[in-house]
């Protein structure tokens, strides 16, 4: 019997053909919150204007982009967010938005947003109560606005995913955070890794959660949701990640990167006439390099130890933390230990 072709198969094919299916556009580094673990590193240069973004989106579409993620900073702080988002939809592309939700607390804004028919909205939920969320965002009232936004999006039938970077401040609230999101029909994804900023500042790492609460939470999550933190299969084919293949990131200044986390500058979208050819032929060394590294990692770094096989590993974050994408680094090593311990605890309880 012929096996059904899955979306995963299509993305594997896109990776093999180096088709940038997912384009992540950092429209601005401006934000109306002041999150203590933010990884953005504003450069103080002039950001692309709306017309430049529309030209960029057309180039990305010609190269095979299909999912366009508008993010920041906070994308809604741009006055021309609507023009850019409408441009994505008018070109027949899938719109996804990463936001802190503050703007969408407003009913009229939520109406306008729903009219764009976004496929997915990802919001940042940092705590189960105002005290925790607002402490991490640095802005009082941000939790209440986020809840209002979740209500607005839920009532308009929009698909929302809540994302929670796990820190010392919220490590004891993870079940409660799930419940808050669940009230609005949202699932939560928990990010165990607090990473250095884009310019290599390691200070956000001090906010990382303690190990034991995470082990317990992940073991419990595995039992409840079936999300078992299994090790990477050493026989699995393919690269460690699809940075620079199916994924491309453009920063607010038009600089092109292989991924939001891997900050090796590949060029500037305004200066690349034929982006499809650029991505396909990889005429610049950093692009061929990241692809080669991603290919080598599964049989080098990720095969070097059991904890590495469990690690939530990102070569870009490793490079920012240690200077080398081949170094596991403290962040990923710790995530590997936590996931391995959670897996064992889950198996013991079965």
């Amino acid at each position, binding site marked *: 019997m012929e096996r059904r*072709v899955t*979306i995963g198969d*299509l993305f594997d094919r896109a990776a093999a053909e180096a088709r940038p299916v997912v384009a992540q556009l950092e429209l601005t580094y401006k934000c109306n919150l002041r999150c203590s673990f933010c990884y953005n590193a504003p450069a103080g240069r002039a950001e692309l204007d709306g017309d430049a973004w529309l030209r960029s989106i057309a180039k990305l579409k010609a190269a095979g982009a*299909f999912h366009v993620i508008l993010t920041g900073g906070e994308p809604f702080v741009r006055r021309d967010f609507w023009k850019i988002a409408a441009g994505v*939809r008018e070109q027949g592309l899938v719109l996804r938005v990463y936001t802190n939700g503050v703007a969408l607390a407003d009913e009229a804004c939520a109406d306008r947003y729903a009219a764009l*028919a976004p*496929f997915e909205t990802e919001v940042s939920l940092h705590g189960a109560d105002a005290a925790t969320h607002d402490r991490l965002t640095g802005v009082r009232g941000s939790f209440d606005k986020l809840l209002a936004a979740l209500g607005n999006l839920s009532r308009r039938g929009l*698909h929302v995913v809540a994302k929670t970077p796990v820190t010392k401040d919220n490590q004891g609230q993870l079940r409660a955070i799930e419940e808050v999101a669940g009230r609005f029909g949202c699932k939560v994804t928990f990010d165990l890794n607090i990473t250095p900023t884009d310019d290599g500042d390691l200070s956000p790492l001090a906010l990382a959660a303690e190990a034991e609460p995470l082990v317990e939470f992940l073991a419990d999550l595995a039992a409840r949701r079936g999300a078992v933190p299994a090790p990477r299969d050493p026989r699995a084919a393919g690269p460690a990640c699809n940075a620079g293949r199916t994924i491309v990131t453009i920063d607010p200044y038009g600089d092109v990167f292989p991924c939001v986390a891997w900050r090796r500058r590949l060029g500037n979208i305004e200066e690349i006439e034929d982006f499809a050819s650029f991505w396909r032929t990889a005429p610049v060394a950093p692009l061929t390099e990241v692809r080669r590294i991603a290919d080598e990692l599964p049989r080098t770094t990720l095969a070097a130890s059991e904890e590495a096989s469990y690690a939530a590993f990102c070569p870009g974050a490793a490079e920012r933390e240690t200077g080398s994408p081949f170094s596991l680094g403290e962040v990923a090593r710790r995530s590997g230990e936590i996931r391995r311990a959670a897996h064992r605890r889950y198996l013991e309880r079965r």
Partner: protein
Amino acid sequence: MRDTDTAATIFRRRPDVSFTSFGDELLVVAPAQSWQIVLNGPGKRLFELLDGERAAGDLADALLEDCEEPLPPRDEVVADVLELLGDLENKGAVQRV
């Protein structure tokens, strides 16, 4: 598919739907239901033919032109077209004109 559907029933792609080709496959994303699916073969061809003007019978005729002998009965192909379009309607990808 509704009992009242016939070869004259017309569907079109919903305006909020996005789709793109990956070689022989078509990835269709329907934000209204937050749903995506891979279509191939006749399903892909059918989705690409949907222009809001051709009725189910016209679509079946177009698909039959692609078939090799012996051709399946037209009524069966129309029924298959209506079944697939009904499924896509439930998933927010197409709508009746």
